[in-house]
């Protein structure tokens, strides 16, 4: 395979939009561009499209009714609305918020922000696989806890949480459970009712819908305040004219994700396990991050001792492979990924991490290519590194 052909394995950062979603969107950009708040015919077409999309999102997560779905601009906004919205509205009840240490920054930073507004944020530890420490959850879950936020699955290391079990603990103290399902939704089955979820963040692009939209599931009876004030759209929880084309695409993508979930997941899991096995077998001092089986079908997170992630990424791109890394050097900050540190990796181990997130268009041939090129990349960089033991260099 030539390097000119790009092999994209960074799907947790961005996904293509499903052709069928694009097709569904076009009508609402070009021919039926009304505002759902308008009374006339074109407005009502938009209203109908909005309702249908809402129904499809609700069905994807087995929500009780479509009215529990509020559309937002994406997962970051959904997380902000869930955390700040619940905190502000329930301040009379308590001021403590719990979240795991491996949450996305769009959960961690709203929690940190709230500490400047009279709230207390407690970040809970996880074990070496990334599973939430349930003992710590019980211990920190005080009477004044209003909200606990835990991701369904971690976007960096792929580990999936036992949400049902977490929910029982959280509800024993009458706190709300917010679950960020941006990474998981559309990939693995989620049932908000069976699993006892009060608020669930969903991302459109992560389900192969367009960027710029997302949703928050809000269980009936959950009290929260809006962050955006204006015309009172989305039951007053999210003012602003609805992004109809994007929402229609999101709805179509959700419908397809529900229908095709098991075949997609089966195929990706097979490619994932092949890639993990191939990468780890070919090179000594290489390790898997996260749990081997209780992980997202698309996630391959590995680390190599003695070398650094960004130099691996640059080398991979020279071979046509686009991936991402847990190293500081690829991010805006100088710290390595907080997720990798929280699962107990040393800084230098975290710096040596690579993440491949697979997608629907990835093929077995592409997986084989990555497995084939990785040993040479690692060998070259290890030969350059002063940390590499002499016995590993020919």
């Amino acid at each position, binding site marked *: 395979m030539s390097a000119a052909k790009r092999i994209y394995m960074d799907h947790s950062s961005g996904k293509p939009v499903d052709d069928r979603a694009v097709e569904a969107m076009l009508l609402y950009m070009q021919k039926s561009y009304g505002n759902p708040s308008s009374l006339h015919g074109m407005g009502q077409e938009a209203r109908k499209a909005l309702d249908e999309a809402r129904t499809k999102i609700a069905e994807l997560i087995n929500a009780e009714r479509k009215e529990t779905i509020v559309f937002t601009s994406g997962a970051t906004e959904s997380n902000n609305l869930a955390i700040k919205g619940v905190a502000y509205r329930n301040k009379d009840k308590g001021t403590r918020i719990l979240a795991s240490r491996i949450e996305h920054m769009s959960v961690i930073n709203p929690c940190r922000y709230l500490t400047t507004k009279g709230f207390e944020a407690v970040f809970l530890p996880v074990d070496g696989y990334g599973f939430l420490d349930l003992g710590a959850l019980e211990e920190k879950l005080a009477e004044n806890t209003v909200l606990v936020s835990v991701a369904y699955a971690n976007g960096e290391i792929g580990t999936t949480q036992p949400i049902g079990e977490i929910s029982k603990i959280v509800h024993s103290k009458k706190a709300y459970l917010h679950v960020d399902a941006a990474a998981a939704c559309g990939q693995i089955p989620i049932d908000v009712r069976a699993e006892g979820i009060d608020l669930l963040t969903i991302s459109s692009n992560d389900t192969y819908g367009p960027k710029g939209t997302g949703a928050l599931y809000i269980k009936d009876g959950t009290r929260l305040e809006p962050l955006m004030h204006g015309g009172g759209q989305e039951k007053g929880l999210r003012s602003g004219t609805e992004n109809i084309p994007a929402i229609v695409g999101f709805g179509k993508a959700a419908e397809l994700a529900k229908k095709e979930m098991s075949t997609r997941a089966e195929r990706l899991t097979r490619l994932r396990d092949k890639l993990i096995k191939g990468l780890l077998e070919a090179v000594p001092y290489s390790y898997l991050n996260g749990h081997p089986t209780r992980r997202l079908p698309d996630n391959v997170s590995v680390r190599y001792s003695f070398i650094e992630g*960004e130099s691996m990424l640059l080398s991979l791109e020279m071979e046509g492979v686009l991936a991402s890394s847990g190293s500081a050097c690829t991010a805006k900050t*100088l710290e390595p990924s907080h997720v990798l540190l929280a699962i107990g990796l040393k*800084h230098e181990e975290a710096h040596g991490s690579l993440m491949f997130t697979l997608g629907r268009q990835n093929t077995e041939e592409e997986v084989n290519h990555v497995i084939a090129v990785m040993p040479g990349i690692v060998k070259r960089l290890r030969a*350059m590194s002063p940390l590499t033991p002499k016995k590993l260099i020919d």
Partner: protein
Amino acid sequence: MYTEKVMDHFKNPRNMGEIPDADGVGTVGNPVCGDLMTIYIKVKDNRLEDIKFKTFGCGSAIATSSMITELAKGKTLEEAMKITRGDVADSLGGLPPVKMHCSNLAADALHAAIENYYKRRGEEVKK
């Protein structure tokens, strides 16, 4: 993100390796930060007769290490002590702002190697 020059030095690093009987060795950085560089020098008649590097780090860490060996080779020790981080970055056609501090350590490693050379000889560092 990187200039062609940076990528060239990353792909084809100059003077990579160790000098087993080096006259001076300088190491800067820390694997905790994601960058660690070691520069080895061989000195003859007050000039850098040979220079090699080993680096753990990102693309710019490797490229700056490679670049400094090109800039310093053949220079007098005094001249080599005057090479700055800015010189290294400029010679590479610039580095992304975030990399200017964290990964642009090569000049420091070179200076540390020269200081080590003087120290081994029991001499004062000449700047």
